[in-house]
C-alpha cells in the first residue's frame, strides 16, 4: 500500500498521498474540535480507518524529518484559509495567554506595586511636610520617618505634639484656621491609607513567597526574593541562573558599562538591600553578596523543583558566617 500522511492542524485533519496531494480531509468548524483532544482523536480515527495512513505527522515531527512538513504546508497557503487561520489562532492564543498566568506574575505585580506605593507615599509625604510646616515646623523637623509623622499628626493636637518633643514653644508655626488645617489632615489620611495598603500587599507577598519559593524567602526575605524573581522574570529562570549572575541581578547597567568600558565590575545588585550586605563594611560586601548568591542559587532550584524545605539550614549557614 502506498504511503499516506495524516496531518492535523488548526483548520482540520488532512490525509496527504505520496505526492503530497490532499486525498481526504475533515475540516474543523470550531476551536473546540481542535482543542479537545478526545474530539480531535475521533476525527483522526475516522480518517485513519478509511485511509490507514502509514505516518501521522505527529510521529514525523519528533524525528528531525521536517522534509515532509515542508511538502505539506504549502497546501494551506491559500486565501480561503486565512479567515479560519485568523479565528482559530485568536481562540488558541487567547486560551494560551489565559493559562500562562501564574504565581510569577502575581509576585512580580505585587513587588512592583509595593515599590510604587513607597514612591507615591514618599512624594506625598514631602508635600504634606512642606504644607504642615507652615503650622508646626518644629514637630515635623523632629521626626524622620514619614509614616510615623503622618500617624502622629493625625492622632494628636499641636500642643500634644510639641509636648512630646519637649518643645513648649512654637516659634515658627503660624496660627491657622481650622478650615486651613483640615485639607492637610485629609492628605495625611490618604497617605496613611497608602501605608496600610502597602502593609496588606506585603503580607500577601509574604504568603505567596511562602507557598511558591519558601527557600529563597528564607535566605533573602520576601521583598528581596521577589525582586530577584522579578529581574529573572520567573522562578524557572531564576533557578537556571548561575550564582554569579544572581549576585549581580539588578546591576545590569553597571555590568554592561564594565564590559563596554572596563569600568569596575559590579559586586552586587538587588542584594545590596539585604541587611548582611548593607550593614557590612564596603570591602566585605562583595564577598557577602557572593555567599548569599551561592545559597540562593541552590534555594531557587529546590523551590522550582518543589524539593524539601532546606531554607532554614542554608540560612543558618550564612547566619553563622556573617551575623
Amino acid at each position, binding site marked *: 500500500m502506498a504511503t499516506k500522511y495524516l496531518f*492535523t492542524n488548526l483548520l482540520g485533519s488532512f490525509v496527504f498521498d505520496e505526492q503530497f496531494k490532499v486525498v481526504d480531509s475533515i475540516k474543523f468548524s470550531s476551536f473546540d474540535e481542535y482543542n479537545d483532544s478526545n474530539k480531535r482523536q475521533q476525527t483522526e480515527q475516522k480518517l485513519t480507518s478509511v485511509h490507514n495512513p502509514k505516518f501521522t505527522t505527529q510521529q514525523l515531527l519528533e524525528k528531525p524529518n521536517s522534509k515532509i512538513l*515542508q511538502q505539506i504546508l504549502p497546501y*494551506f497557503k491559500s*486565501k480561503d484559509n*486565512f479567515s479560519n*487561520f485568523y479565528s482559530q489562532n*485568536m481562540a488558541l492564543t487567547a486560551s494560551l495567554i489565559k493559562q500562562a498566568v501564574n504565581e510569577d506574575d502575581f509576585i512580580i505585580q505585587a513587588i512592583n506595586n509595593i515599590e510604587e506605593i513607597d514612591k507615591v507615599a514618599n512624594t506625598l509625604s514631602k508635600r504634606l511636610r512642606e504644607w504642615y510646616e507652615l503650622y508646626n515646623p518644629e514637630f515635623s523637623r523632629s521626626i524622620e520617618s514619614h509614616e510615623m509623622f503622618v500617624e502622629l499628626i493625625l492622632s494628636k493636637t499641636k500642643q500634644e505634639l510639641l509636648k512630646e518633643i519637649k518643645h513648649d514653644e512654637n516659634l515658627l508655626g503660624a496660627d491657622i484656621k481650622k478650615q486651613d488645617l483640615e485639607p492637610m489632615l485629609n492628605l495625611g489620611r490618604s497617605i496613611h491609607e497608602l501605608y496600610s495598603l502597602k502593609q496588606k500587599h506585603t503580607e500577601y507577598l509574604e504568603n505567596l513567597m511562602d507557598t511558591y519559593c519558601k527557600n529563597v524567602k528564607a535566605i533573602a526575605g520576601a521583598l528581596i526574593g521577589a525582586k530577584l524573581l522579578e529581574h529573572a522574570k520567573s522562578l524557572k529562570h531564576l533557578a537556571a541562573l548561575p550564582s554569579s549572575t544572581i549576585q549581580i541581578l539588578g546591576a545590569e547597567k553597571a555590568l554592561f558599562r564594565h564590559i563596554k568600558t572596563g569600568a569596575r565590575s559590579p559586586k552586587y545588585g538587588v542584594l545590596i538591600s539585604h541587611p548582611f550586605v548593607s550593614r557590612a563594611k564596603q570591602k566585605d560586601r562583595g564577598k557577602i553578596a557572593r555567599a548569599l548568591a551561592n545559597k540562593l542559587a541552590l534555594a531557587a532550584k529546590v523551590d522550582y523543583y518543589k524539593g524539601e524545605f532546606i531554607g532554614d539550614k542554608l540560612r543558618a549557614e550564612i547566619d553563622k558566617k556573617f551575623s
Partner: protein
Amino acid sequence: MQTTKFPGIFESQVGRKRILLTKNFVKGKKVYDEYLHTEGPIEYREWNASKSKLCAAILKNINQIGIKPGDIVLYLGASSGTTPSHVSDIVGSEGFVFGLDFAPRVVRDLVFLAKDRKNLAPILADANKPETYADRISTVDVVYMDIAQKNQTEIFLKNCNLFLKPDGYALLAIKARSIDVTKRPSIIFEEVRRLLEREMKLIDYKTLDPFQLDHMMFICKKK
C-alpha cells in the same frame, strides 16, 4: 503623498525630513503614538523609524524588502505589534500576517490589535521550536525576524527552512549587543553574514544608525 519603489509604502517630505507612511488598514485607529495623515479618502499612518527597524532599513536605502501587497508573512518577534501593524497595512486585505512572540504580556497587546486587524493572527510560541507551531500556520512568502536572541541566526534559518517558499524573501534584524556584548558589532555582523550565506542568497544589508545603534538588517532569498 508619494509612492516609493516599494508597493504599499508611501513617503512625504516634512521640512527636511523624509518620512514613510502606510495606508491605515483600520481607518481612524492608531496603533502606537503615530500621526495619522489624511489625503482625500485615504488615511495614512506615519511610520516611526526609531521604533521600527524595517522603517529604518528602508530609510537607509535597503534595495529590497520583499514584503508587498498580497503577501503572506511570518513575523517572528512581533512584540506588541508596532512594526507588524505596518506590515499588516502593506500586505492589505489580500495578504496575511502570522505574528508570533513568546512573551504572553506582549501577545496580549497583539490580540487586542488583531481584533480589528483581521489580516493579522497572533501566535504565542517560541520561535526556537518551529515544530510546535507548524500546525498553526501555512507556508509563507516572507519570513521577518526580530527576536534579539543569542542564537537568532540559527533560529531564523530553521524557520526559513520549514516555512518559507522557494525563492521567498527573508529579513533578519540583528542587534549586536544581544549576540555578544564583548565583541565589536562589525565582527558580529560579519559572522551572521557568513552563517546566512551558507544557506541563503544574500540580497542586501544595511546598518540602522542613526535610528538604531549597532543594528543591522539583512535581506536574503531562499535558494
